[in-house]
């Protein structure tokens, strides 16, 4: 029996080694897990082939020709396992390093992104606050109780002042025209006084003439008329004084009339204002009011738009920040992958340890060798099951849109 199995192995070891080499190569290129499973399949194949060759025992006895052949087969198998071990340890190390850098890169990038989004959110909120302030400022402008310095209030105030000024000009004009009428009346009265003075002058002239006649009559009467001549002279003097007074009054009256005329001109000048100023100012204020109304409407519409945009930016930022949860998922996945690497390492170590003491070239014979291989297989299965139980994939969430993240 022993010889038979040995012969079989000797007969088939070349393709066996070749397939092991292919597996190893593929293992490094593709993935260690695939290589490992390949190795397990290989072991199983060896096992099954030997078993089947036992069952279909060929009549021709096969055996190792000598001890040297068995030894070199042992060495080849151990060399294979050692190579696998060494190769995989290198790959595992490299993979761990790359997993770590993936995690660090993602973590750094996510931190930066998170800060950017938080900054963006803050700026957007500040913007919204400013917009709100603007809106409330504009609403207050319409309220009389509020800010007197606002443009609307200023315009309203200007309108009030203008109205007051117009009313003032009109009432001043009415008063002035009334006064001009009274001045004209006074002027008429003065003309009447002038006419009366003419009458007074006529009386004085006539008195003078009478006194002259009386003086002539007194002179004709001779000595008896001497006393009468004195009276007539006095009367004449009186009439002359009266005439002088009359002239003086006339002069004063003329001066007064001149003064009155000046006053009339002054009052008239005061009252005569071109009303076009009022028309222009009024239309300008009206225009301003109209413009203000348009501006207010436009501004309110724009502010509403800005508010809506700010709201949607808020939403987008929220989505973005929520999506940043992928960092956790990546971290957990790399951790998990690391665990799998450990699994593979454990398996290789188990193979290494199980095969270390297994020798074809021993006294125990081929059965013990096969038993040893079976034990190694079982040991790997048991160990892997235990390791796998510890590795529970914590990342079941695959969709970033799940769950909500509150911004702070």
């Amino acid at each position, binding site marked *: 029996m022993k010889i038979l199995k040995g012969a079989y192995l000797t007969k088939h070891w070349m393709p066996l080694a070749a397939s092991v080499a292919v597996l190893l190569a593929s293992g490094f290129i593709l993935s260690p897990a695939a290589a490992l499973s390949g190795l397990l399949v290989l072991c199983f194949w060896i096992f099954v082939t030997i078993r089947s060759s036992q069952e279909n025992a060929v009549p021709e006895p096969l055996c190792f020709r000598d001890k040297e052949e068995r030894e070199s087969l042992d060495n080849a198998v151990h060399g294979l396992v050692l190579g696998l071990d060494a190769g995989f340890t290198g790959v595992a190390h490299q993979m761990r390093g790359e997993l770590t850098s993936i995690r660090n890169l993602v973590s750094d990038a996510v931190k930066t992104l998170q800060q950017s989004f938080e900054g963006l959110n803050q700026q957007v909120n500040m913007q919204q606050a400013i917009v709100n302030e603007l809106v409330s400022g504009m609403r207050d402008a319409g309220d009389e109780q509020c800010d007197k310095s606002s443009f609307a209030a200023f315009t309203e105030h200007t309108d009030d002042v203008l109205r007051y000024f117009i009313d003032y000009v009109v009432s*001043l004009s009415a008063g002035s025209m009334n006064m001009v*009428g009274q001045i004209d009346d006074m002027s008429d009265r003065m003309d009447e006084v002038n006419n009366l003075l003419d009458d007074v002058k006529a009386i004085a002239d006539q008195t003078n003439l009478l006194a002259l006649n009386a003086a002539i009559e007194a002179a004709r009467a001779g000595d008896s008329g001497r006393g009468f001549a004195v009276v007539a002279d006095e009367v004449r003097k009186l009439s002359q004084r009266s005439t002088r007074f009359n002239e003086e009054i006339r002069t004063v009256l003329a001066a007064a009339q001149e003064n009155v005329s000046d006053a009339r001109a002054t009052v008239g000048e005061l009252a*005569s*204002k071109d*009303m076009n100023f*009022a*028309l222009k100012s009024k239309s300008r204020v009206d225009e301003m009011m109209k413009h203000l109304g348009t501006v207010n409407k436009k501004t309110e519409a724009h502010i509403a738009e800005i508010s809506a945009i700010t709201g949607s930016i808020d939403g987008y930022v929220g989505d973005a920040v929520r999506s940043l949860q992928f960092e956790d998922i990546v971290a957990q996945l790399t951790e998990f992958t690391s665990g799998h690497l450990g699994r593979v390492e454990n398996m290789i170590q188990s193979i290494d340890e199980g095969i270390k003491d297994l020798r074809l070239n021993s006294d125990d014979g081929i059965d013990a060798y096969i038993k040893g291989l079976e034990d190694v297989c079982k040991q790997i299965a048991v160990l892997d099951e235990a390791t796998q139980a510890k590795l529970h994939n914590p990342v079941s969430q695959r969709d970033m849109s799940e769950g909500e993240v509150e911004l702070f």
Partner: protein
Amino acid sequence: MSISSKFIEHEKKLGIILGDRFDFSCHDEFRDTYRSLDLSQLEITVDFARTEYIDSAALGMLLVLRENAGGDSAKITLKSCQPPVRQIMDITRLDKLFKISD
């Protein structure tokens, strides 16, 4: 004479027709049209059809006329005001004190 007037005694109507300018220089002429009349019972019409310019003194003269005609009980119509004159009546709110007609 830029101002003319027509007094119809039995109808108690006084019509005053203004010239192209109605300002302080027209004061005496304007006053003379009603000075000798008892205005309290009269229906007064001031025709602005030819008038293109008025100043504040003109407004004052109209107000004095209104005062002489009994103030709030006066019956005065400002007729055929051209747009510039009409605007002045509006912004000075004289259109509230006088009846304005076309």
